[in-house]
């Protein structure tokens, strides 16, 4: 839709993004006290800054309708989904299962984000890397990372 309405779709999307960020912060800060210039309340800066972001977002969108610019880049989902997914897996498992389980799983899921994924290589590599991480962070640097959760 943006491609048809605006001659600079990338900037149009950028402006839209800023406007939504500003809207979110305006909504969140709506209950905060503004105060006066002499003694600012907690809401003064957040709301003024959000208004500036809103203004800049509108300006960028306006510019996008009068200038020609690059199209929106294509969004390949594989990269973000698996990279973010692997971080979530780490967050989920580090306390409940420990690094011994979380490490290899994080790396295997993460590695799948690349279309050059090779299963066997990744399996061996992730196990070796986990061993290395346990040695480095737990044994040598003595960080309190759970290696096996139930121990």
């Amino acid at each position, binding site marked *: 839709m943006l491609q048809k309405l605006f001659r600079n779709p990338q900037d149009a999307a950028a402006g839209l993004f800023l406007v939504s960020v500003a809207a979110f912060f305006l909504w969140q800060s709506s209950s905060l006290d503004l105060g*006066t210039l002499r*003694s600012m309340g907690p809401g003064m*800066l957040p709301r003024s800054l959000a208004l500036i*972001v809103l203004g800049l977002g509108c300006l960028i969108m306006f510019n996008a309708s009068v200038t020609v610019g690059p199209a929106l880049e294509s969004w390949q989902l594989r990269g973000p989904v698996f990279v973010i997914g692997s971080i979530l897996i780490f967050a989920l498992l*580090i306390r409940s299962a420990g690094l011994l389980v979380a490490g290899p799983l*994080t790396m295997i899921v993460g590695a799948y984000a690349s279309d050059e994924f090779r299963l066997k290589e990744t399996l061996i*590599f992730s196990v070796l*890397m986990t061993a290395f991480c346990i040695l480095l962070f737990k044994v040598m640097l003595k960080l309190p990372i759970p290696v096996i959760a139930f121990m």
Partner: protein
Amino acid sequence: MDTIIGNLALGFNTAMSLQNLGLCFIGCLVGTLIGVLPGVGPIATIAMLLPITFGIDPTGALIMLAGIYYGAQYGGSTTAILVNIPGEATSVVTTLDGHQMAKQGRAGVALGVAAIGSFFAGTVATIVIAALGLPLTKLALLFGPAEYFSLMVMGLVCAIVLARGSIVKAIAMIVFGLLLSTVGTDLETGEDRMTMGIAELSDGVDFAVLAMGIFGFAEIIRNLENVETRDVVRNKIGRLLPAWQDIKDSAMPVLRGTGIGAILGILPGNGAVLGPFASYTIEKKIAKDPSRFGKGAIEGVAGPEAANNAGAQTAFIPLLTLGIPPNAVMALMVGAMTIHGIIPGPQVMTKNPELFWGMVASMWIGNLMLLIINLPLVGIWVRLLKVPYRLLFPAILIFCCIGIYSINNSVSDVLGTAFFGLIGFTLIKFGFEPAPMLLGFVLGKLMEEKLRQALIISRGSFETFIDRPISLGLLVVAVILLVLALLPSIQKGRDEVFTE
């Protein structure tokens, strides 16, 4: 002069202790490693290694972290020369002539000149820091809230001018960063602001979490989309020591580069990144035969490399004397200092002289180490560069996860990085440059504090920023810079500098 020598002696005494030498060495080695590897930057690495420094004394911790930072600048040029990919953003310019030299079988000379030029620049920058430290600290003591606020405004304007691409977008990123910094407990009333009831957010967004998300994870996703071809030089690296003629050719560019880099580095607002570009442009302008540039001109390696390293080091000046971090790496240093109970600012030099001068002296020692360890290790770096990215990035992923978890032993921090990774990726997709946002975030809290203090003192009148001469001067500079950057003719030149 006597005090400088006395202070430097104290510094070298501190830096030469066995532990600090070891930490400096580790820092330089890790720094070079991540500098060599494209796709891992000093920001993510330092955020990742923050927890490791908990057990070390603050001086040692900062010595190591500083080593990572300037080590990365060294390493970045190795990749630029050998593979034609900038290992770090600041070594983009080095790819132009450095890689051409490598193709002509002069890779060794290019590496040698880069290393020697960097070492010289590092030495000069160390002296500059030592010499400017005391007077700037005294100046800082004259600063009230209004001056601090205006100085930070100038810093942010510098960051806008120096950002690539659209200026409006850069401004938007800065304000977005400032806005993010207001999340968390209000500093006067203690009221929770925009935390959506999430308890972890009442301390505000953690800088390491934000930086790791935006510069660690978002970069990985980005790199996965652009399949890079690594054109590792197959020629022999050749002899490392430059011939006499090479030294003569690069002496002046190194000198000029050092000067440019050192001055730009001091500017708040990440002026250091501009150093290499400025140096390259100048060398090309004054060269007798500009057409040689881009085809393996040694001046095009020597100047920018010196500027790069000088800027990387003088960037410590605003942090150590005024307590204002000029870029994201320095902001992480603030984090490392506060973890150890040291508040960065003019009082560091009087309260912790061994930390200040120890760090300054360690920079020189670190540069010497880099010169010595780097050249013989080139073979290892080349082999490392042949490790494919599909194996590299899962390793980066797990290191980042462990690092960010360990800072506070907190799962919600890990979730936070995932969130900001997504935001960072979105920003890149929409053509925003994330670096100014990070700077806005870094300065946000301090700016709000100073602004509110200044307005309380002046009873709500904004005239205080204009009435006070230092503050007025800083704001005038900021306005001039902004107007210049918006002028069409300058804007064209700015694009040229960055696209060259």
